[in-house]
C-alpha cells in the first residue's frame, strides 16, 4: 500500500535539484551585473561619498556643524546609531535563534539577513565614533594599559557598556557569518574559471574539502556560535537602551526600555530584511528560494513585535500618569502634544497602526504591500528613537533651558551617507558572496520527495 503523508508546503519552489541551486546561487557572482545593479550602486556610492564628505567636514570643523545645542546634546547621531543597531538584530535572530529553534525556513534568508546585520552594525558603529567631540582620542574608551597615570575607563557608564556590547556583537556576527560562508565559498572556488577569482575564493574558503569531518566541525561550530549569538540578540539592544534607562532625564529614565528596545529592534530588523529581500529576490530572480511563505512568516514577526512595541508605548504613557511624577508626566504629555507631536504621531502611525494591517492574510502575503509596510516600519522606528532622544531632552527639568532641535545639512548628509554606505556594502556583497546559504539550503531540498515523484510521473514509470 502506498501511503503518502500530508506534506508541508515546500520551502523551496520550482523543483530544484542540487545543481539548480548551485547554479542559481552562483549566477549573480558569475555573470556581469545588470544595469539596475549599476544604477543602484552608483546612487549608493554617491550617497556614501557625500556622507564621507560630511563626516570629514564634521571632524575637521567640529560637532557644531550639526544642529545640536546646549540642551539637546544628541539627536540624529544617536538616533541613527540606535536605528542601525536595531536593524542589525533581525539577522542574528534569524540565523542564531531560528537555528536553535530548528526553523528551517530561515535558510533562504539567513545569509542576507546576517550580511544586513553586519553592514548595519558597521553603520551604527560609525556614530558613537563621529559623534565624539574629539574622535582622535576615541581609543580612550577602550580599557587598554596606558601611561596617563593610572587612568582607567569608567565602568559605570552605559556608553562604555555600549562599546563592549557593540564590539562583541560585531565580532561574533562576523565570525558566525563567515563560518557559514565557508562551504559556499568553496562551491564558488570549485566553479571559478578565472584565476583571480579562483585564487580569492580559495583563500576565503579556508581549504574546505567537503569531508565528513569538515561538515561535522562546521555543524558544531555553527551551533556553538548560534548559542553565543543568541544572548547577544537580547543583550545588545538591552545595553543600548540602558544609555537612556540609567539616566535621570524624564522620558529616558524608564525601566521598560530593555525589552521594549529589543522588541523594537527585531521589529525594525525584520522590516529591513523584507525591504532588502523583496528587492533581491526580484533582482536575482530568487523567487523560488525566497517565497511568499518567507515573507508571510516575517510579516507575522513584524506584526507581533509591532504589537509589543505598541504595548510598550502605551505602558510608558500609563506609567507616566500613574507615577505621579510631574516631570515624567509632562515629558510624555509633551511628546504627544508638544512641538514634536508630529514626530510622535508619525511614530505611532508607522509602528503601532500599520503592522496591525498584517492580521489580514491577503495583505500580509502581498509583496507590494509588504514592501511598503517594511519601509513605513523603518521610518517609524527611526522616529521612535528620535522621539525618545530629542523630545525628552528638549524639554527636561528647567524650562529656562528648553529649546528645539533642527538638523543641518550635515546631519542629513551623514544619515544619507550611512544609507549609501550600507547599500554599497550590500550591493557589493550581493555580487561577490553567495546570497543564499546554498550548502544549508541543500539539506532541505526535497530531492527524494516531490521532485522524484514528479520525475517518475513525467517518465511514465509506476
Amino acid at each position: 500500500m502506498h501511503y503518502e503523508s500530508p506534506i508541508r508546503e515546500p520551502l523551496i519552489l520550482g523543483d530544484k535539484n542540487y545543481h539548480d541551486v548551485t547554479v542559481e546561487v552562483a549566477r549573480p557572482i558569475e555573470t556581469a551585473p545588470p544595469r539596475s545593479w549599476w544604477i543602484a550602486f552608483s546612487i549608493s556610492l554617491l550617497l556614501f561619498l557625500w556622507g564621507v564628505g560630511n563626516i570629514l567636514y564634521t571632524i575637521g570643523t567640529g560637532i557644531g556643524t550639526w544642529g545640536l545645542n546646549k540642551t539637546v546634546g544628541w539627536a540624529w547621531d544617536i538616533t541613527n546609531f540606535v536605528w542601525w543597531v536595531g536593524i542589525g538584530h533581525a539577522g542574528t535572530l534569524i540565523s542564531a535563534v531560528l537555528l536553535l529553534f530548528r526553523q528551517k525556513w530561515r535558510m533562504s534568508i539567513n545569509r542576507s539577513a546576517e550580511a544586513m546585520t553586519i553592514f548595519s552594525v558597521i553603520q551604527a558603529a560609525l556614530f558613537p565614533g563621529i559623534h565624539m567631540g574629539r574622535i582622535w582620542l576615541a581609543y580612550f574608551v577602550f580599557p587598554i594599559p596606558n601611561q596617563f597615570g593610572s587612568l582607567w575607563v569608567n565602568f559605570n557608564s552605559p556608553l562604555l557598556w555600549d562599546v563592549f556590547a557593540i564590539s562583541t556583537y560585531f565580532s561574533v556576527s562576523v565570525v558566525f557569518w563567515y563560518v557559514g560562508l565557508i562551504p559556499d565559498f568553496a562551491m564558488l572556488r570549485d566553479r571559478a574559471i578565472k584565476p583571480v577569482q579562483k585564487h580569492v575564493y580559495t583563500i576565503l574558503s579556508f581549504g574546505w574539502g567537503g569531508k565528513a569531518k569538515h561538515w561535522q566541525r562546521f555543524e558544531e561550530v555553527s551551533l556553538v556560535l548560534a548559542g553565543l549569538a543568541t544572548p547577544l540578540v537580547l543583550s545588545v539592544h538591552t545595553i543600548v537602551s540602558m544609555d537612556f534607562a540609567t539616566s535621570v532625564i524624564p522620558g529616558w529614565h524608564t525601566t521598560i526600555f530593555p525589552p521594549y528596545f529589543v522588541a523594537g529592534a527585531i521589529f525594525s530588523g525584520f522590516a529591513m530584511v523584507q525591504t532588502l529581500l523583496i528587492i533581491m529576490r526580484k533582482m536575482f530572480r530568487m523567487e523560488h528560494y525566497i517565497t511568499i511563505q518567507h515573507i508571510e512568516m516575517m510579516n507575522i514577526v513584524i506584526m507581533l513585535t509591532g504589537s509589543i512595541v505598541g504595548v510598550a508605548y502605551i505602558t510608558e504613557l500609563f506609567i507616566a500618569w500613574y507615577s505621579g511624577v510631574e516631570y515624567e508626566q509632562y515629558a510624555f504629555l509633551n511628546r504627544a502634544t508638544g512641538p514634536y507631536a508630529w514626530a510622535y504621531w508619525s511614530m505611532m502611525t508607522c509602528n503601532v497602526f500599520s503592522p496591525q494591517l498584517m492580521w489580514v492574510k491577503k495583505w500580509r502575503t502581498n509583496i507590494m504591500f509588504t514592501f511598503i509596510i517594511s519601509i513605513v516600519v523603518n521610518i517609524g522606528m527611526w522616529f521612535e528613537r528620535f522621539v525618545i532622544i530629542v523630545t525628552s531632552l528638549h524639554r527636561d527639568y528647567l524650562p529656562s533651558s528648553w529649546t528645539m532641535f533642527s538638523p543641518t545639512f550635515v546631519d542629513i548628509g551623514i544619515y544619507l551617507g550611512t544609507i549609501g554606505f550600507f547599500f554599497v556594502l550590500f550591493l557589493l556583497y550581493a555580487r561577490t558572496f553567495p546570497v543564499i546559504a546554498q550548502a544549508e539550503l541543500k539539506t532541505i531540498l526535497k530531492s527524494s520527495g516531490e521532485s522524484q515523484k514528479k520525475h517518475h510521473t513525467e517518465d511514465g514509470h509506476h
Partner: protein
Amino acid sequence: MAEVKKYWKGLEELKESSPIMDNLRQNEFASEMPVEDFLGNGEMLAGAQTSRRDFLKYLGFSTAAAALAACEAPIVESIPYVVKPDSVLPGVPNYYASNYYDGHDFASILVKTREGRPIKVDANRDAPFNGSANARVQAAALSLYDNSRLKSAVKEGQEVEWSSILAEVSKEVAKAKSAVLLSNTIISPTISEAISEFELTHSNFKHISYDALSLSGKLDAWQELTGRRALPCYNISQVGLIVSIGADFLSDYNGQSMTSDYSKSRELSKNMARHIQFESVMSLSGSNADKRVRVKPSEQSQVLLAIYNELAKAKGESQLASANLDAKLMQDAANTAKELMKASASVVFVGGNKKEDEVLCYAINKLLGNLDRSVLVSKRSRLRAGNDKALNQLIAEMNAGKVDVLILDSVNPVYNVRGFEEALAKVKYKVAIADRLDETSSKSNVVLPMHHGFESWSDALPVDGVFNLGQPLIRPLFNTMQREEILLAVMGNSSKYYDYLRSYWSSNILPMGMGWNQAVHDGFYMSEKSEIEAGEASSELVTNYDEIVASSGKQISTAKAAGIEISFYQKASMGVGILSNNPWLQEMPDPLTRASWDNYLTMSASQAKELGLENSNTSNGSLNGSKVDITVNGITLTEVPVYIQPGQTYGTVGLALGYGRTMAGKAGNNVGVNAFVLLQDGMHSASDVRIEKSASDDHEFACVQLHHTMMGRDIVREVTLDTFLNKPAKANGEGWNERTTYETYEGALTSDDANLWKDFDHKTGHFWNLSIDLTKCIGCGACVIACHAENNVPVVGKDEVRRSRDMHWLRIDRYFSSDMNEEVAQEGNIGAIDMFNAMEEPSESPEVVFQPVMCQHCNHAPCETVCPVAATTHSAEGLNHMAYNRCIGTRYCANNCPYKVRRFNWFLYHDNQDQFDVNYAMNDDLGKMVLNPDVTVRSRGVMEKCSMCIQRIQYGKLEAKKEGRPVADGEIQTACAQACDTGAIRFGDANDSQSEIAKLKKDDRMYHLLDEVGTQPSVFYQTKVRNKA
C-alpha cells in the same frame, strides 16, 4: 705706547722659581693622560662592557634624541624678565586699587594683574562710594586689549608725531576766535580746575559738558530748588519703603550704585523694605519690586502728582492741581501714599528727565522728611553734570559757523546727539580725544588717542567728600597719551600729568605732604572738607519753593500725551554704548528679555496682537520677531525688531540705548539700532509714536532663554514676608520650605535617604558650598561677566547664541509668573494639555524671579556616572571636576545633567578668526592678554562647565598651607561671589562650623534645586521672600 698688561694666572707665578711653574712650562699636561691604559690594554678593551657596536648605538641614540629634543616647538613671544620687578612673582597676582570712569559709569575698583597684565576688575569694597563693579565695569579689562583702539595720533588720516600735533592744536586753540571743549561730565577735580582756570583766563575758550543720557532737566530742578546744580546722593540702606516711579535705580539713576544698599534695606526682618515700582518698560528695578504697577511714561508724572496730593492732604498741606489719572491708577497712587505715610523711612525716586517731575519728587521726599535721611541734599553726586542748554547753544553756534576750534574730549556726539553731525561739519578745526576712530573722531581733523583708564593716572570726586585716586596698571600698549595730559597740553601746559596731579593733591586735597602713598594704595581719600564748591545752598535758602512746586504741579496736570508712548532705557549690559565693542557685554543676555547682541522695541503682547506683530520660534527654537518702522519726534527708524515683553504697559514701547554703533569695532558695529537719534530735548520718553510693520522678513534674535515660565514646577521657591516671619519652614509637610519625601517601606524618606548610592565622605576636609539668596539676587549680571573674565569663557557670537549654544558657565534664569496654575486649572476644570499650554504664556503683568544657575556640583552627580572615560569626577571636597584633556566629547554628561549647565565646545573658539573674529579675547594676539593664565582655554570638542573657581580654591589652600594655618572663612571667593554687590552669592567651607556658609546651609530658607532628583548639590538656594502686603 700702549701698555701690555700682564695678568697673573696664580700665586705660583709670583715666585722666582717654582717647581710647579717649571713643570708646567715643560709639560703641557701636568698629570699623565691614561691613554695607554685605555687603548694599550687589548685584553681590557676586549673585556669591556661597551663594545664598539654599543658605542655606535649609544652615539646614534643620543644624536637622535638630541635631534628630536631640538624639534620641540620654540616658545614664541615669551620674554623673561631681565631684571624682575620686586613686586612681581610669576604666578602670583597683584591687586591694585584704581578708578574706572568712562564718562558714564564710575567705580572704585581693585584690579588683578598677573605678570604685569590687568586681567580682572573687582570692586574695591573698602571704598566709601561706588565700591561696586557692575557688569560693564567688570568687562572693562577686555576693552583695554581692544585692537581697534587707535595706536597713534592721526591728522587727516595721516599718522603724526605727538609733539608737533599738540603744539599745533594748542596754537589753533590760542588763535581761535572761539574754541570749545566738549566733554562728558568731568569728575576729576584736578583737570576740571585746570579747565576752569583756563576758561577764566581765555575768553575765547569755553568748556561744555553733556551726558549721553541727559539728566539736565533734573539738574535744573536741583539748581532751582537748592541753588546747586547737582543731583543728590541717596542712602537707602535703612529705608522701609522704596517707591520708584519709572526710575531704574538699580541699574543707573544718578550714577550712584545703590545695589548693595538696596540689599541691606531688604535684609529679612519685619523691617524689610518694601519696594513699589510704577513703570512702563520692565526694568531691573521693576522686576525686583514687591508691587509693580504698569503706567505710561506720561502717567508717571500724574502718579507723582497724585501721590503728592494725597500726602499733602494727609499732612494738611495745600494740594496742587489734580492729577489726570484713571480710577485704578488713582487708587494705586493713593495706596502708595498711604504706605508712604506709614513707613518709618522711605525714599521716592522718579525716572526720566523732566524738571517738574524732579521738583515734585523732591517735594514728596521733603513732605515725608526724607531729605538728608535717604535723599542726601548735603551730599551730592557729581557724576552727572551735563548741560543740555549749553549743548544746544553750542550746536546752534556751530551751525552758524561761529565755532573755530572744537575739542571733543572722549565723547561721541555724532552717535548720541541728534543733529550734531551736520553741525560738526561746519566747524573748521575739530580735534577728538578718543580711544578709537569712532563715529565722531573719524569726522575730526585731528584725533589724539588717549590711554585706557588702566594705563593712566586719574583722580575723581564722584561725590562730595570722597576723592578717588587711580593708578596705572600697565605701561601704555600703544603710542597714546593720557587724556588729561592731552588736555593740559592743548591748554598750553606741558607738564606731566602725574606731577601735575600729585602736586594738585598735595596742595589741595591731602593734608600737608601726607598720605599720597596711602591714597594710591587705597584708591580713595576721605576729605574732612566735604565741599569743594563754594556757595552751597540748602532748601531753606530757596524763597519761592512753594511757587516752584505749585507751578510744576500745574505743568504736570495740564500736560498732554497722545498715542503710543516710547521710553528709552539702558540695558544692564550696554548702558549708553560706550563699551559697545566689548564682546563679553554684547553676549551678556539682558536680565529681562535674555536676548543678547541686540536691542529691540519692547511691546506688550496685546499691543503686538493689535498691530499684527508677533514673536515666533523657528524649527531650532530660535526666536524671530516682526520688524517695524517707528517714527518718534519726526525721525523714523526702520526695521526695528519687536520683542514681546511681559510687564510692558499697554500703549507703550521701549527701546534700549547704546546700540546701533557703526564705528565701534568688529564686535560692536551694526548691532541693533541707534535709539539716540530719536531722543529730543534730553527727554527719556516720547509720545505719539507711529509704528508700522516693515515689509522685510522677521528679525532673528539671539535669545538664550526661550521659555519664560516655571510651568508650575518647584524651581524658585517663594514666600511672602508674612509667611516667612510667622509660619514655620518645616512642619510635617505643612511648612513653607518642605523637602519632598517618598513613601517607602521604611516610611517617608527624602531623596537623600531613599537612594542606592554609596555616599562620598564629606565630613572630613573641606566641603565647598555655594549659597545663592534669591531674595537678594537682583539679576544684574555682574557675576556673569566676572565668570567670563575669570574662567576664559568663550564668546560665540550672535549666530551661535541663536542656535542655543551660548557658553556661559553661569546663567541667570529669569522666570515670569503665568496667569495659569494648577489651582486655576482645577477651578476652571481645565485639562492638563490646555493647562500646560496656558502655563507657557507669561502673564501680561507678571511677577519676576531671577535664579543664577551654574554647575550645582552634585554629590550624586548624574554626569559623573555616565562619562565613559571618567573625564568628569568627584573631588573629596564636594566639587565636580572636569578633566578637559581626558574628555572625548560624547556630551552624555550634558544630556544627563538635570540643570543643563554643561557647555560643549562645538567649534574651536580660540585662534579661529574665520568663525569667531568678534571674540577678540581669544582670537587676537592682543586680546588674548586678558585671558586668565590660571585657567585652561578649552579646545574644540570638550565639555566645560563651572569649576567653582577651582584655581582660586587651590590658590587659597596653598597660601594657607604656606602659612601653616587653616583656610579662613571668606578668604577664598569664587568670581561670582566676589562680584556680587548684593551679597546674594556666598561661598565657603561648609565643614567649618563657624563659617557663614555652614550657617546658611542650616538656614530655614535653604533648599536644593530639583532636590527630588537626588543629586545632592553643593550649591543651594535660599527661598525668595517677597514683601507683599
